[in-house]
């Protein structure tokens, strides 16, 4: 009898389960039992990075020569001038204000604000110091006085000299008429002709020019006196955005934000004296496939006797606008150069891209296959060059272009309606070779016409990089250098933001470990400390490497005050990342030691084909598991455990964590399914605090038959390994990472559903923290599994 009951019961339950099976949904229950969760609780400590507000546009007041005034807004560039020996404090901060606004006290046009900071020895925060300037102004914030150089405007990016922190501001947005700066009286009101004086340039002082011709230069300012020094007439008039003065105190690189834009260079005759030197633009030889510098004279001395030539600043000797893109020595074309920075002697800059098609490039280039009648400029045909870096970028995005010649790619790029540069990239210039190369391409480009990611409904990638703008470097006290990249999305279309109403459209702030070879989007580290929806523009480190100064330009979405204003704030704690080395997140690659090709990161469940690795004589000892930690900190150790057809383990202390794949008795690597578990520790040799282990499962295969995918999760291959869902905290942002891309629901302490995130690799606690009613506990429930309890700790 009992057996019958049991049988009936089990059948009933089986059937119920089967019924429940058809009811299994992608929808999450609206509540769960808060007492029923997996035994393991995840602790999510606060990130060691913290924010401090320094300067609020439109709210803090600045001292001007005409009294106190509310500071301007639209913060953009930040420069930092370190205090020299004998000077107090840490140094001076200079902030650009991008918009053109009339202001009786500050001055019309754009502007800059300066202030001095010191590190508080007790709190580690930055204090803004009181100053009394040479002209008697006294207080905390000062506007930079541009009266003596004829006002300024559109102050976007700029230059901090790597040598001594001298500052230049870039007057970016190119103006062509006086009325266009007057703005009906809301802009620059004094539109009388300007007489240049005190600039220190031979041949420029004494010139009378139209007011509008006195804009669109790099302007040097002195943060100590909060005054403009001179406009760099000799660097040309153009839509300058970023630049860098190298550590030799002589060489300057400039980027022009235009379509097409220039990359130019100025080398001073005497270090530190930028009034005399040689100017050139970056040109490109499409036959030899190499770049070179073409000298270009910025002068108006050419016809000293003929005043009309001397005074033609608009389209004469001083303004570049389009002229270098002509003739046989035509310049290389760039599509909107933004910020420029330098590290280890190399120059990096962001090319932010452009929505729509590249028809403007066609205008600046002779169409070789089907000649088009193109308007001449000063009697020369446009002949703008396309460099190899762009051809490489195009091939990355459209693999079919690998089969054709470089020139065919050039044809293809400039033909109508082929290429939409929706994402942009970061480029690198190496002065030792004079060559420009592609450093980091934007993307991924889901669903391009050549189907780089054709999986239907594949969803938004974990890391997405588009329209980079601000660029700088941060070196921590431990000597680790990160490239800091600010996005400035040109648009939300084309999968640049996640799908669905109310999706995250934040411009991201990224850090990239400069030790990563062949960096890709996957290597970017998200810095979470930004106000929602803000465009983070300037990024500038303090000399001690502990703080990153950041500008949040007028956010479009709204936040509580003051995050709804343009503001300058500091992210402290870069030195503290090393103290929480156990919180690093592991990523895994399988590499061939002899092959320098970049390898993708292993995703849970991947199949990796041995056949994809280079052929040639080598031993099995060449198969190496490489663990990349995020963030990379030269601290701590890893416990690596490998189990599979052959098992092994290793304690690894040294950065560039490598472990050879375990081999069989004959010394061969064995195909099959492997599980790799990596546990980080804060100290060496597995001492100190133990972090959260991360597990990877992958299948190593010969991939002999044609239906086996290259690296990727292959649904056709059955694995006997049960998927394990793991949650582990992300140290730089208040976020939880997942082992596998998952859909999860968040429940508060009472078990009520408060949030749902689908197909994500991580979730940021700040997205739903306010829904937790002040409690530090919540549950994460992945689809079809039990909930995991998470406790927020200090």
């Amino acid at each position: 009898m009992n057996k019958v009951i049991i049988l009936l019961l089990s059948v009933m339950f089986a059937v119920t389960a089967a019924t429940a099976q058809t009811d299994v949904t992608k929808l999450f229950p609206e509540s769960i039992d808060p007492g029923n969760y997996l035994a393991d609780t995840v602790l999510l400590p606060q990130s060691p990075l913290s924010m401090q507000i320094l300067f609020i546009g439109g709210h803090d007041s600045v001292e001007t020569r005409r009294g106190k005034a509310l500071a301007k807004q639209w913060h953009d560039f930040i420069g930092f001038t370190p205090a020299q020996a004998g000077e107090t404090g840490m140094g001076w901060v200079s902030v650009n204000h991008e918009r053109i606004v009339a202001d009786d006290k500050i001055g019309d046009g754009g502007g800059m604000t300066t202030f001095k900071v010191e590190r508080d020895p007790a709190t580690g925060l930055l204090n803004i110091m009181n100053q009394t300037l040479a002209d008697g102004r006294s207080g905390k914030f000062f506007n930079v006085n541009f009266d003596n150089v004829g006002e300024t405007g559109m102050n976007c990016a700029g230059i901090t000299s790597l040598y001594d922190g001298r500052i230049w501001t870039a007057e970016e947005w190119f103006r062509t008429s006086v009325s266009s700066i007057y703005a009906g009286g809301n802009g620059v009101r004094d539109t009388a002709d300007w007489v240049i004086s005190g600039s220190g340039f031979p041949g420029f002082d004494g010139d009378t020019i139209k007011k509008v011709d006195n804009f669109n230069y790099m302007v040097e300012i002195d943060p100590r006196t909060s005054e403009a020094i001179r406009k760099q007439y000799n660097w040309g008039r153009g839509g300058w955005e970023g630049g860098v003065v190298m550590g030799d105190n002589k060489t300057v690189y400039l980027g022009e934000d235009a379509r097409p834009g220039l990359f130019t260079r100025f080398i001073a005759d005497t270090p530190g004296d930028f009034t005399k030197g040689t100017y050139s633009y970056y040109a490109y030889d499409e036959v030899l496939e190499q770049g070179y510098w073409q000298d270009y004279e910025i002068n108006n001395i050419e016809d000293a006797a003929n005043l009309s030539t001397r005074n033609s600043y608009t389209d004469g000797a001083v303004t570049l606008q389009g002229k270098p893109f002509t003739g046989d020595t035509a310049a290389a074309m760039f599509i909107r150069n933004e910020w420029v920075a330098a590290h280890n002697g190399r120059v990096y800059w962001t090319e932010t891209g452009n929505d729509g098609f590249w028809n403007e490039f066609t205008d600046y280039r002779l169409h070789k296959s089907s000649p088009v009648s193109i308007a001449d400029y000063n009697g020369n045909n446009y002949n703008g060059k396309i460099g190899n870096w762009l051809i490489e970028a195009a091939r990355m995005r459209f693999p079919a272009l690998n089969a054709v010649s470089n020139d065919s790619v050039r044809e293809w790029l400039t033909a109508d309606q082929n290429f939409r540069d929706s994402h942009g990239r970061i480029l690198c210039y190496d002065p030792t070779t004079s060559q420009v190369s592609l450093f980091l391409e934007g993307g991924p480009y889901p669903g391009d016409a050549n189907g780089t990611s054709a999986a239907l409904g594949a969803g938004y990638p974990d890391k997405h990089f588009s329209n980079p703008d601000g660029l700088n470097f941060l070196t921590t006290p431990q000597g680790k250098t990160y490239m800091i990249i600010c996005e400035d999305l040109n648009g939300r279309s084309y999968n640049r933001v996640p799908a669905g109403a109310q999706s995250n459209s934040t411009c991201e702030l990224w850090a990239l470990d400069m030790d990563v070879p062949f960096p890709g989007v996957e290597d970017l580290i998200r810095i979470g400390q930004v106000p929602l929806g803000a465009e983070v523009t300037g990024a500038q480190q303090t000399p001690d490497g502990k703080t990153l100064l950041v500008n949040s330009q007028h956010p479009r979405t709204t936040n509580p005050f003051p995050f709804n204003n343009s503001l300058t704030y500091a992210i402290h704690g870069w030195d503290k990342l090393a103290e929480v080395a156990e919180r690093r997140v592991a990523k895994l690659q399988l590499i061939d030691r002899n092959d320098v090709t970049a390898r993708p990161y292993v995703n849970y469940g991947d199949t990796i084909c041995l056949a994809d690795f280079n052929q040639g004589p080598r031993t099995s000892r060449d198969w190496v598991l490489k663990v990349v930690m995020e963030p990379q900190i030269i601290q701590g150790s890893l416990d690596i455990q490998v189990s599979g057809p052959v098992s092994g383990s290793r304690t690894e202390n040294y950065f560039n964590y490598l472990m050879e794949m375990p081999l069989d008795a004959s010394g061969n690597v064995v195909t099959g399914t492997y599980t790799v578990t990596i546990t980080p520790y804060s100290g060496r040799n597995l001492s100190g605090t133990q972090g959260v282990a991360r597990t990877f499962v992958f299948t190593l295969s010969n991939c002999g038959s044609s239906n086996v995918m290259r690296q990727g999760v292959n649904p056709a291959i059955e694995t006997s390994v049960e998927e394990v869902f793991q949650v582990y905290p992300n140290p730089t942002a208040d976020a939880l990472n997942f082992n596998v891309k998952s859909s999860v629901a968040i429940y508060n302490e009472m078990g009520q559903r408060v949030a749902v995130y689908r197909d994500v690799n991580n979730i940021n606690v700040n997205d739903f923290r306010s829904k937790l009613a002040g409690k530090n506990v919540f549950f994460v429930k992945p689809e079809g599994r039990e909930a995991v309890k998470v406790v927020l700790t200090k």
Partner: protein
Amino acid sequence: MKPTVTHWLIISLLLAFGLTFTAFTHKPSKTYESITDNIRLSYNQGLESFYQEVKDLQAEADKLAEGKGDVENIQKQFLQSRDAFKKIEYLATYYDDEFVTLFINGAPLPKVTQDDNRSISQPVGLQILEENIFSDEPDAKEIQILSKELSASVRDFLFSQKVPALYDRFVFEAARFELIRIFSLGLTGFDTPVTLRGIEESHIAMQALKDAISLYDELISSRNENLAKRIRKNFDGALNYLEENQDFDSFDRLHFLTTYLNPLYRDLLKAHKALGIETIDETAHAREKFSINYDAENIFSKDLINKFYYTEQLEEQYDDEVVELGKLLFFDPILSDKLERSCASCHQPDRAFTDGQKKSLARGFDGTVDRNSPTLLNAVYSSRYFYDLRAERLEKQIHHVLFNDKEFNMNFFQVFNRLSKSPEYAERFRNVFPQFGTNPINRYSVATALSSYIISLGSWESEFDQYVREEKDEIADEVKRGFNLFMGKAGCGTCHFAPTFNGLVPPLYQENESEILGVPDSKDPAKMQLDSDPGRYKGLLQEQFEIYMHSFKTVTIRNIEKTAPYMHNGVYDKLEEVMDFYNKGGGEGMGLEVPYQTLPPDPLGLNDQEISDLIAFMKSLTNTDLHRHTKPEKLPSFPEGSEFNKRVVGGIY
């Protein structure tokens, strides 16, 4: 044998088993997972079809350019392309409205590009193609260029659209936004200005919604049978109505709205919730604001649109206290240099917050300011402020008035100084803005308080709103006719979008349009010239483009009965005069030269009855609660003997 417990147990088990078994055999034919897969596949097929049609259109265009084509064929192919687009519109615009508007189905007008390096981009897409293909003298070369561009754009769109996942939540949200789109854009002929196929296209769009939602029918039924029935009935009814009433002019849009659209809008929300599908609130950043309040059940709901989307202020910070403080400041002439004027001088509550002047009086009686005073009722519903759109947030608007030497001629420091001298103001500010501690009177708090008062002036309480919301049973026939004209033959609804009746573009109402109408400087036909006010051209510096010359913000028709005189320069005193202006085709229609006029210059052909009906409808948009806007009885006092105590509530003039 007496039944034992065991027997009962077995019986109940068998019963349970039986029931379960029945449930098992009658298993729902589709799980959730396969519904979205289904819809995703269908969307993908729709995209492919659309691309194919567009490629065929390009082929026809090539033939035409080579002299081998046929205008009739290309017109037919064009209409097929539009139909193919309408099938996928609800998801295409949901996923990537930006791309659709820029490259596929945007207005046939030049635009300024949004990047730093601004320039004019010429219109592309289906609508400019319509203009060309159906013109009296089609330019084959132009059509060829445009169709090639469209084809490339759709190609790129197609591939980029392969990527986004589809979740149940998207289906319901997209469907509801599409209902708003059908109502405010489809049926008004907004995107088919030449062929006027708004009714046919709405049918296609509606059918696509029905096809998608009906896949959920069983599941909805299992939760709420009546709900499922109503949804089916209303979809069928709507489709039927669209089939049987194809004439653009006579289509009864009000009936369609109240009988089919609003019930569907409500019921799809109920279905969304009944199924336990997550809502927008659960997927968003805690702080990020969305313009549409998804929980609103009616398109004319008071809270359809989130007022705080347009403001810096957060809803959590908005309360009676901050509104009260803002109201005091609004009526307080202390903000003006000579203590004689306040915001209420030009925005008087008993004139629907206007002043009845063509252009407001300038400070010191020295002439007038540049433009007519617009109403502040519902002014919060806008992405930009002033006729020339130069202020980007409500909180930024006050800055301009303060500084302007024809208005208040003050600066912030002076304002802070004055206000802080009043103990009452100081205390109020401290209470309302405790986060500032000892210095609560600053730019942020002053602007926030004033804006709060403006936010409180937002209300949709006209008899028309009440009728649509079924709070009122009847409304006059002329109002109904007027509404249908407004949204149909007269074309008003293609710029004054329902339900805000201003320039916020549906269905998300996130951006405010401006238009070039060719408003004259005088009513007298003999004397009139194009009014010289440059409008948006001289607003923000970044917008100094010729396509914005004489372009002005599209303000709201709500409460228009009370806000005479009309237009940016107050040129018209009566609504009849305004109607005459539009009936003639605006400035260009009246023979003035108006470069880039966006208002179609063709006469509307409205007769006197129609004009009278339109005016009746516009009058029905007057709020019934205007009496609640009162002046404060007194203003905060200053220490004894202060000259500030002599100031008058609302100012002297």
